[in-house]
């Protein structure tokens, strides 16, 4: 059981958990968080692949992870902004009570 195999398995497990989190729970925020969990899962697999030849680190997966992270951030940001706007529209009736 080499180290990269272990981390790959963990990565895939994370991916599964994220998938479950995305599909089942009804709440929107849980879904967005689940997407990030899946993202980290995939990135872990990538990092594991980069480490497969232990001393020599393969920079390409790393670059892919970096790019992946930025994209994940962008996606999550857009999702959250949408959620806020939906909340704003749906809640405008009892808005005066709040701040």
């Amino acid at each position, binding site marked *: 059981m080499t180290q990269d195999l272990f981390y790959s398995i963990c990565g895939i497990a994370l991916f599964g958990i994220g998938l479950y989190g995305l599909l089942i729970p*009804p709440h929107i925020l849980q879904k967005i968080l689940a997407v990030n969990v899946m993202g980290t899962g995939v990135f872990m697999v990538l990092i594991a692949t980069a480490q497969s030849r232990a001393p020599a680190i*393969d*920079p*390409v997966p790393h670059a892919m992870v970096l790019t992946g992270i*930025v994209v994940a951030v*962008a996606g999550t940001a857009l999702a959250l902004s949408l959620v806020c*706007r939906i909340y704003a529209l749906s809640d*405008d009736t009892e808005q005066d009570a709040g701040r």
Partner: protein
Amino acid sequence: MFRELNSNAAPPAGLRIVCALAIVGLTLALIAAVVVSGPAAPGLQAAVAAALPHSGVENPVTAVLLNFRSYDTLLEIAVLFVVAVATLPLRRAVAPQRTEAVAVEPVLAALVKLLVPLVVLTGGYLLWVGAYAPGGAFQAGALLAGAGVLLSLAGGFSLAALPARPLLVVGLVVFTAVAAAVGAITGAFLQYPVAAAGVLILVIEAAATVSIAATLLLLYGNLAEPVPSGPLAGTKEPAS
């Protein structure tokens, strides 16, 4: 707070179990595939190592990011730009409700005055060190954004005041301009002349940092600021 957003209550128990089983099965299958396939293929580190001297930077990841696969980074900045544009209106439409009169906690104010310069300094260092060690535009951008957030929390600074438009777009424009110019010189798009590679990469990284910081601040501003009441100004409400 958001519970009413998703009217559909949690799916019935039976469905959840079936779905869970399916996902577990999928995961196990993937794991089995990975295990069975044995060790990973050698990958590209040899090629990267061979081409590193011509890339103009020492850090292989930065070389890959900004030279070998610079096209990906260009598109990545475009992604950020997309999200920036997508969340743009909230900021402009919102009248800055935060008035100066709001009491500024004295402790926070003092901390801000001390921390912000330091943060900017480290951001600059991170940007520069990217060529030699892990670092680079994205990490520097994140730090600067943090500084910005701190300032806005401290109240002395309103995000609406930021000249959003040019800052957001500068990263993308500079990167494309450099790529095009370089393409004209060396005959291939994004192919830096070996000598000037390092400098060009630095220029690009700097512009990218600015854009990233502005975008992240914009995103934070959009989420944190109070949401305007009533339908968004400027969005024509089609009666659905």
